[in-house]
């Protein structure tokens, strides 16, 4: 069993995390997010055609339809299937097409401008501005309600200080992962929200395993100082945490590199989340509980009443 002095060096880790968080917040504010149509509204169209075009050619064709389409996002994407010989392009524009007629006109104009004979629409996602607004607000609700539910559960099963510690660790994970999404320009869409919620569940799982060991060890020896208990508890579960993280990381990372564009917003969050989540469970979640538990002890001693 390893014996690392994690609690003793907790200030180092907390400062490191604070620096990371500040860095990520700055990145988010400076660079912003690469919002998918789920959040920004608009249309995402995947077209397929026999001919190969450069991105500029497609941009010109779009510009001819409407000058404002010059800012469209165009990605050349070839699915990895063996028997697919066509070229695929993903076009994201800010407009939403309220009627099928408008949509047909757009596709027809695009095919004409590109002089393509077999331009086909493989995928079409149209999210009106209202839908985008709604999805955005519900993404927030989902995160906030999840946090509140978890806060209540951990308070019941452990203590309020632990719940706060767990939530702080979660906030830490979410902010840093958000920063990484911004830094690498990974698309933010509903899949990414699912990744965040999974990351929350995962990181919490890790944190709970450590807390559970602390709970057990405290019950065994009430006289040992909290620092020692927490440090030995972390060391006791360290091997388990690493094994779990490595296995989850393998699966998530494979999804990220082989899964392709469609699943990338999800797999990226998971891959980064495993790393950040494991780090925070070991080095952040438990050490920050120490000061809270200590303060509470002082308070309860003065009041000389209920200790738990």
């Amino acid at each position, binding site marked *: 069993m390893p014996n690392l002095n994690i609690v003793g060096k907790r200030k180092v880790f907390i400062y490191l995390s604070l620096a990371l968080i500040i860095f990520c917040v700055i990145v988010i504010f400076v660079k912003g997010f690469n919002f998918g149509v789920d959040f920004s509204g608009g249309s995402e169209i995947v077209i397929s055609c026999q001919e190969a075009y450069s991105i500029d050619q497609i941009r010109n064709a779009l510009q001819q339809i409407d000058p404002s389409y010059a800012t469209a996002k165009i990605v050349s994407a070839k699915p990895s299937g063996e028997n697919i010989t066509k070229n695929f392009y993903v076009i994201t524009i800010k407009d939403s097409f309220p009627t099928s007629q408008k949509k047909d006109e757009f596709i027809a104009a695009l095919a004409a401008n590109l002089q393509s004979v077999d331009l086909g629409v493989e995928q079409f996602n149209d999210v009106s501005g209202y839908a985008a607004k709604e999805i955005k607000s519900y993404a927030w609700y*989902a995160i906030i309600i999840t946090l509140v539910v978890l806060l209540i559960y951990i308070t019941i099963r452990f203590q309020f200080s632990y719940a706060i510690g767990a939530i702080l660790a979660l906030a830490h994970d979410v902010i840093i992962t958000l920063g990484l999404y911004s830094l690498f320009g990974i698309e933010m869409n509903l899949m990414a929200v*699912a990744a965040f919620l999974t990351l929350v569940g995962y990181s919490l799982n890790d944190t709970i395993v450590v807390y559970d060991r602390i709970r057990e060890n405290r019950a065994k020896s009430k006289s040992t100082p909290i620092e020692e208990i927490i440090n030995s508890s972390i060391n006791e579960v360290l091997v388990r945490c690493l094994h779990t993280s490595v296995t989850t990381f393998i699966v998530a990372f494979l999804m990220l590199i082989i899964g392709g564009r469609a699943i990338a917003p999800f797999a990226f969050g998971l891959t980064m989340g495993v790393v950040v989540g494991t780090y925070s469970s070991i080095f952040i979640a438990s050490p920050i509980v120490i000061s809270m538990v200590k303060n509470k002890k002082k308070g309860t001693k003065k009041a000389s009443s209920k200790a738990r």
Partner: protein
Amino acid sequence: MAVFIFALLGIVLPLSENKNNISVFKYLPNIKLGLDIQGGSSLEYSMVIPEGARAEEIVNNVIAVLRRRLDSAGYTEAVVSEVVVGGERRVRVEIPGISDTRRAEELIGSKGKLYFAEVLEVVESTTPPQITRNRKVKVNGEEIDLYSYVKDSRNPNLWYRVKNVFEFGDSPFQITGLDVTDARASLNPQGAGFVVNLSFNNQGKTKFELATANLIGRQIAIILDDEVIIAPVVRDKITEGRAEISGIETVQEAQNIAVLIKSGNLPVDLVKFQESTIGPTLGKDVVTTIVNAGIIGLVVVMIYMIIFYGWMGFVADIALMYNTLLLLGILSWTGAILTLPGIAGIILTFGTTIDGNIIIYERIKEEIRVGKPPLTAIKFGFNKVFPTILDANITTVLAGIVLYFLTSGTIRGFAVTLIIGVLGAMFTNLVVTRVILEGSSNLIKPEKYLKGIVVGKGGNE
């Protein structure tokens, strides 16, 4: 074991006539695949519901009308459902297997204005005739052209000059599809051919009585989307709110007319909220890649477990397979829809199952290090680990439940597989793994872990 067989039956039994032909799902015919996997179109519309109207009724009405329209156009596989998000009601139409949505959108989008009008004149003309003198009449606050030419639905050269508003009684009125409660085709009880029976609601009954009383011997046209479906001659004043249109030659024609009349009016305007269409080839391709990624990941993790835990690692791999089959079985039985994020949820379940096993094994190792024989160590380990696994997994399930209730569509599929998967992982870890390990405790070599005690002692104290 019984649970396992039950799950397996769900996978194997040919419960439905679904045919999945994508990747591994070929072998799992009972799992319903979401539109993002099998390809298809999902259209969501918001409704402009007037204040004070009974929303529930309107929504049901809209769904019924859309259902009939899609059925009559051959989209029998389409699913029409209500979506309630934050107090706002919307309708969603999901049509599997199509990527050309134009026809469907036309069917859904048209408000389908159906009304009855007095026929003034029937003319034959190859070009649309023009009304020379016209005026507007206000009915329920809406301005309507009094006269217009409407063409026949079967003969494009036949034009009816109609008076769009009935001007009998105290104030002008219209009879629309909203006044019709039912239309049915049946055999003519009194003669040759077929009839269409119409029923009216109370309001419609009064209006129809007034109109027919004044129009005996004249034609009333039934107009849907500016085409005359049929223009029967009024024989009597109709007082009971029931009318019969006779003289139709074939049963198909009668049925068609009935469907058109019945599926006539949408009570509100539908505005497209979002659309998502995915071509069948693209969906197939993405799924194949993800499934491959999942399987490779799974194999790597299984090898990893055997390297680190020997026999116990092998047991963990059995547990992993077991939980995967359990999950697929439950999906088959319940008819839950598997979406792309749902597959991600399954892959995540692998992680949870393995994690549970690792927690258990580390505990068992600790017990062995203290000197307990393997069987006792296993028993102790499982008892101690129970609250850990419970707390760790319940929190994940809670997050999954929140996700389930707050989202709709494909992400919900993720929540479903996550919840089922995590509960399954708990069962597998605490029951299945335990039974196998207790039965095979002689295969665990305690010497392997006892060696570690020398290194680990410092950490324990």
